[in-house]
C-alpha cells in the first residue's frame, strides 16, 4: 500500500516539477519581450497571451504536487497541538465533505468548459488572430484530475494514520526554509551555536 501511495506522490511530484519549467520560460519570454519592445522596437502581439498561459498552467498543474508535499496553507492554530490520530480524523472528515465535492465539481465543470472551447476551436479574446486557447482551458480538468488522484491518496493516508496512530512517511522535497542548507550557506556549524550558548550562560550570573 505504502508503495502505491508513494508512486502516486511521485507522479504528482513529477508532473508539478515538469510544469514548473513554465516559470523559467515565462521569465525568459518576458525579459526578451521587454528587450525586444524597447531595444529592437519589435513587440509581439501574442506575448501577453503566452504570459497568461504560462502562469495559469504553472500554478494549476502544481496543485497536486503542492498537496503531495503537504504545502497548501493551513490555519496552524490548533492543528500542531493535536495527536496524529485527531489530525487524521479531522482531515478525513474535511477531505470527504469539502475536498471531494469541490475538486470533483472543478474537474467536471472544467471538462465541459474545455470541451466547449475545443468545439469552437476558441482562440484569444485579447489579441486579434491570437493563439488558440483550448489547450490552456484543458489545463483545468487535467489539473483537477491529478488533484483528485492525489486527494484520494491523502484520504488513504488519513485512514492508515487512524489505524496506526502515526502518519505514513512522505518523500522529502526542497524546502522553503531548510535550516541545514541555510547553515551551510553562511558557513555556520552546530558547534558554533553551542559555543555561543556558553557565552550566554557565562554572562548571566554577572548581570
Amino acid at each position, binding site marked *: 500500500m505504502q508503495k502505491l501511495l508513494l508512486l502516486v506522490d511521485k507522479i504528482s511530484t513529477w508532473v508539478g516539477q515538469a510544469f514548473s519549467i513554465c516559470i523559467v520560460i515565462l521569465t525568459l519570454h*518576458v525579459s526578451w519581450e521587454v528587450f525586444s519592445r524597447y531595444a529592437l522596437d519589435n513587440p509581439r502581439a501574442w506575448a501577453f497571451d503566452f*504570459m497568461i498561459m504560462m502562469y495559469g498552467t504553472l500554478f494549476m498543474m502544481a496543485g497536486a504536487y503542492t498537496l503531495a508535499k503537504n504545502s497548501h496553507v493551513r490555519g496552524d492554530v490548533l492543528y500542531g497541538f493535536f495527536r496524529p490520530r485527531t489530525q487524521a480524523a479531522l482531515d478525513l472528515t474535511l477531505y470527504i465533505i469539502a475536498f471531494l465535492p469541490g475538486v470533483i465539481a472543478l474537474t467536471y465543470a472544467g471538462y465541459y468548459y474545455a470541451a466547449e472551447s475545443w468545439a469552437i476551436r476558441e482562440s484569444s479574446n485579447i489579441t486579434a488572430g491570437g493563439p488558440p486557447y483550448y489547450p490552456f482551458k484543458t489545463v483545468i480538468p487535467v489539473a483537477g484530475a491529478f488533484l483528485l488522484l492525489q486527494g484520494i491518496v491523502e484520504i488513504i493516508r488519513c485512514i492508515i494514520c487512524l489505524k496506526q496512530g502515526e502518519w505514513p512517511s512522505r518523500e522529502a522535497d526542497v524546502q522553503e526554509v531548510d535550516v541545514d542548507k541555510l547553515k551551510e550557506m553562511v558557513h555556520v556549524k552546530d558547534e558554533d551555536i553551542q559555543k555561543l550558548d556558553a557565552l550566554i550562560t557565562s554572562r548571566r550570573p554577572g548581570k
Partner: protein
Amino acid sequence: MRVRKELWFGFALMAVILVTVLVLTPWSNLFDGHMSKEDLGVLGLLMLALIVVAIMIGFPTAFTLMGMGVFFTWLAYNSVNPDLAVRQTLDVFVLRTYWVMSNDVLIAIPLFLFMGYLVERAQLIDRLFHSLHLATARVPGSLAVATIVTCAIFATATGIIGAVVTLMGLLALPAMLKAGYDVKFAAGAITAGGCLGILIPPSVLLIVYGAVAGVSVVQLYAGAFLPGFMLAGLYIGYIILFAKWKPHLMPPLAESERLVPLPPLSQRLAQQNRNAVAGLWRALTGPGSAGVAKRTVLGQFIVALLPALIIVAILGVTYLVTTAPEKVASTAGLVQTGGLTAAPLLEEEGKEPTGLIGAPEAEQEDSGVKEPPAEGVKEVAPPAAAEAAKPEVVEKPAAAEPERLPTPTWFWIVCGVAIALYAVRYRRFDWQRLEIFKRLLTSFFPLAILILGVLGSIVVGLATPAEAAAIGAFGGLVLAAAYRFIAHWQATGLNRRSPGAMIWRTTKELGTIVKESMFLTAKTSAMVCWLFVGSGIFATAFALLGGQAIVERWVLSLDMTPVQFMILAQFIIFILGWPLEWTEIIIIFMPIFIPLLPHFHIDPLFFGLLVALNLQTAFLSPPVAMAAFYLKGVSPPHVTLNQIFAGMMPFMGIQLLALVLLYVFPQIGLWLPSVFYK
C-alpha cells in the same frame, strides 16, 4: 499542561460556533427551495462561521473554501431555480477559476517569488551583512543597525521571511552576542527587520491585495515605498537612541574590529597620503611613485569617484528632464564639473577630467548589473551620439524644440548640497573607507540597483508589474550566476585552474539553484493561487446568499464615523493576524471589508497600505509569531522563546506608532502616487 488548556479553549470556541450554526440554520426549508431572503442571508453568515471553524481546525484552506463554496452556491441557486442549480454552480465555479488563471495582476506573483528564491541562493547575505556592519561601525548600536538595513534590503529582494530571519539568526545573532549585545534586543532587531519584506515593495502581499481590491498594483507600490522606509527608519532611530541611552546593552565595537585589512597597494599609498582620493591622484600623476602599476591605480581611482560620478549622472538626467524642451546645449555635466573645480581642494581637481570622461563609465556600471530598462532607456540618447567628444554636443541631436524651460531654483539648491556633501565626504575619505566602499560595491549596490530598477520601471511606467518582475527574476539569475562564479573563482585561486572547469562547475551549481527555485516557485504560487480559486467560489456564495448585504447593513447601522470604522477594521485584521497567515487574511477577509470602504469615503489604496503595515505585527504577535519560531530554531538553546517575544515587543510598539503616523498623515503613503499618477 498549558497546551492542553489552549486546546480545550479552541475546542470550546469551535463548539460554541458550531452549536450556534446548528440552532440558527433554517433546517425546515433548507433543501426544498423555499427560503426567504433573510434565511439566505443568515445562511451566508453561518457559512462564514463554518469556514472560520474549518480554518482553525487546520485543513488546507483552499479546499475548505472550495468545498463549502460549491455547496453553498448550489444552495443559493437551488432556492431560486432547482432545475438549473447544478449547471449554474458549475459554470460560476469554472469561470471564477478561469478568472484566477487568466488574471494579469497575479502573473507577477510567481515571477517575484522566482526572483526571491534566486536572489536568496546567490548567497550574498554574509557579504552584505559584513560590509554594512563595517560601513555603519561608527553609529551607536551599529550591529543592530546593520541588521535592520541588511534585513530590509534582503527581505525586500527575496520576500521570504522565514529564510531571512533564519539567515540573520545565523549571521547577526552570533555577531551581536559576541559583541556583548543584549539577547532580547538582538532577537527583536532580527525578527522585526526580517518582516519588513512584506511591506517594502516589490512585495507579493501588495500584489495579492491589489488583485483582491481592484487597486492598481503600481499605485500600491508607489504608496508603500515611503511607509516602508519610514518603518525601517523608525527602527533604526529607536536603536540609535536606545544605544545612546543604555550603552551597556549595546556596547560599541572595539577599534580593532572596525579595521579592514588593506590590500598591499593601498597600504603602500597610505603611507604617503592619508586621504585616499588625493593619494590615488598623486600616484596617478606623480612620477611612478611607490612602484605600482598605473592601471591598477586608475581603477581604484575610478572606484573611489564612483558615487560622485553617479550623482553627476543623476543630476544631469534630472536637469534634462526638468528642462525638457531642450535647445541650449548646456549640460549638467559641465555645470557640475565647473562647480567642483571651483572648490579649492586638491582632490577635487582630479574630478575635472574624470567628470567628463567618466559619465559614460557610470552608465556602464549601472547596466552591467542587468537592470531593467529604467536607466538604459533614459540614457540611450547620449551613447547613440557617442562619437562626439564632449558631452554638451551629445545631447544636441535630441534637441528639436526651440525653447528650454528655465532651470528651477531647487535644482541649483540640490546641486549645491550635493557638491558640499561630496566635498566633505572626499575630504574625509581615507583608505579604510575606500576599502569598505569597495565591499559595499560588491554586495549592497547590486541588490539595491536590482530592487530600484524593478521598482523604477514599474513606477515610471516602462513595464507592467509582471514584466518588471520577470526582468527582476532574470536579474536574480544573473546575480546568482555572478556571485557563484566569484565564489568559485576565489576558492580555486586566480591562475591555478583552467577557467573552463570553473565555468563548468558554476554552471552545474547554477543548474541546481534554478531547479530548486523553480520547484519552490511552483509550490508557493500554487499555494497562493489555489487559495484564490477557493476564495473565488466562496465569495460568490457569500454574495449570492446575501451575507455581504447583511454585513453592510449591520456595519452601517452601527453608525460609525470613518475613524471608528478604520480602527475597528484594523483591529479585526490585527486579531486575525494571530491565528492566520496574511494570504488567508487578504484573500478571504478583505473582500468583506473592501465593499464597505466607499460608505466611509476611505481610499482602498490607503486602506491597503494600512493593512500591509498592520500585518507586520501578525508575524511578531506572540501566540503564532512565525518570525520568533524561525529565530528560535537557529539560536543557542539558552535563548528562550520568552526572551525573543520580549525583544519583539518594543518593535511591535514602533509598528503601531507607524500605523498611527500613517493614519494621521496619510500623505506619507499617498504623496508618491499622487505625484506620479495625477
